[in-house]
């Protein structure tokens, strides 16, 4: 059953683990954003998952995967400012839309195909709005390999596909460490900051990785050694 599509419970568990991962690593994210930005990325991301949780409490919880992801989209788009808030919102919105489409298909649920399609659409929207290209040292650098991994994994079960997406995202995160930022606050620092991965990219990796398990600490995943 879990082989072909995520059901509502699985999607909900994923989102809950994502929230847990964000809370658990908030301090580490803050520290990263202090080094390359203004130190609020952890707070912004935590505010987003908290707002989504509150939204679901108020509405009595979702009936399906699309609504679970839709709550995330609404929370991030409507309640969270900052640079990353609405960008994550766009990703969740695209995933929710893809989930709704695939639910209409026979078999229903959140398939790997829907995940691949939603992530690709989300990435495209993020690039349209934020104007970043791969290599600018932004969350795009984690989302691009994640989207590619999902596309390549079409046909495999969502759990395996998301694990591959997470691997790609983490690699993307580690690759950002050696980049000079051209977008976002880190860009103002020129070459002064090196060897620090981009916090937004870490947020993307956390999202995919939480499909399998909660991430309690970033440190081991960031070391390139």
């Amino acid at each position, binding site marked *: 059953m879990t082989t072909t599509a995520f059901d509502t419970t699985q999607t909900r568990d994923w989102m809950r683990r994502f929230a847990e991962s964000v809370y658990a690593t908030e301090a580490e994210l803050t520290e990263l954003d202090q080094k390359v930005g203004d130190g609020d990325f952890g707070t912004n991301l935590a505010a987003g998952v908290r707002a989504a949780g509150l939204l679901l409490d108020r509405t009595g919880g979702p009936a399906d995967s699309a609504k679970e992801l839709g709550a995330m989209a609404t929370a991030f788009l*409507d309640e969270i400012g900052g640079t990353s808030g609405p960008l994550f919102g766009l990703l969740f919105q695209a995933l929710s839309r893809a989930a709704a489409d695939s639910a209409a298909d026979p078999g229903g649920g959140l398939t790997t195909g829907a995940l691949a399609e939603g992530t690709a659409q989300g990435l495209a929207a993020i690039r349209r709005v*934020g104007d970043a290209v791969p290599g600018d040292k932004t969350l795009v650098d984690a989302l691009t390999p994640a989207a590619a991994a999902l596309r390549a994994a079409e046909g495999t079960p969502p759990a395996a596909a998301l694990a591959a997406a997470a691997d790609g995202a983490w690699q993307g995160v580690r690759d950002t460490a050696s980049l000079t930022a051209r977008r976002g606050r880190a860009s*103002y620092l020129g070459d002064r900051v090196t060897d620090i991965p981009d916090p937004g990219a870490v947020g993307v990796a956390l999202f995919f990785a939480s499909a399998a398990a909660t991430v309690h600490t970033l440190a081991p995943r960031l070391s390139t050694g």
Partner: protein
Amino acid sequence: MTRYFENGTGELVPDALAGFARAHQDLVDYDLADGYVTARHPAPTRTVGLLSGGGSGHEPLHAGYVGAGMLDAACPGRVFASPHNRQIFRASRAVAGPDGVLHIVKNYTGDRINFGIAAERLADAGIACGRVLVDDDLASDSEAVAAGRRGTGATVLVEKVLGGAADTGMGLDALVDLGTSVAGRCRTLAVASAAHHAPVTGEPAFELPSGELEYGVGIHGERADHTRSQKQVGVLVEDMTGVLLDALCPGPDDPVVALVNGLGSVTSLELYGIFGELGRVLDARRVRLVRHLVGDYVTALDMRGFSLTLMVADRTVLDFYDAPVHTPEWRW
């Protein structure tokens, strides 16, 4: 709760807004649900609502400049995070005039994105919306920075000039042109001798060795792209002013407006000393300094630093700048 006087993380901004709204209830209204501030007594002659916003931590920007002669609404985000688009959308709808609403946006990715989404929603709702982007920060004027120059100190000058213009009944397109032209004639440079303290941790956002200056610092604790050693303030101001003048090239008859702006915890003694040095440098270079402001106008929490902004004006711009204003933090 180690350094900041607050009720807990995340309460700093909402608690401040509640207190601000009570303190200035004669001048502003505060929409608690959507978290924006509006002017109670805008000029009846206005046809366009003026709105600005951005991350908090830059007070008095923007809420302190809501009122007659300046902004119709301000949308404060969390500390150093741009407001969300719903906030901007709702506030815009609340203050739009018959000729729409003008967004004055500091050039930061987050602000651009959130104001951008709000603008889409306004278009959808049939409300005309224009944008003036402020991008005065010289330190980020580099090929390597794809996002372009940051918006900093000039924001208050643009808000004041556009406020004066809007009070004459000027329409949306003319305001966009005027604001864009004014913003283009402003440049700012900022330095810090110590970082602000992060509210969450109470610790300095970055460490500066004693005697070092962060040269070209941003207003969110983004470090500058280099440090330099601290010099006598006269030498420092001379250097900074030279760079600003090279970028702006005012003609000998151009009236120039200067803003000497404290970033948070630099003392008033220092700001006036800096103004004295600036005056001397401009005199020596025969620049016509016709107006000036000295004080904390656009801060970066409790950062220990200051910024210099120069604006090349003309008669029209000066008239709008001189027009009456009555907001919580600016009055004449």
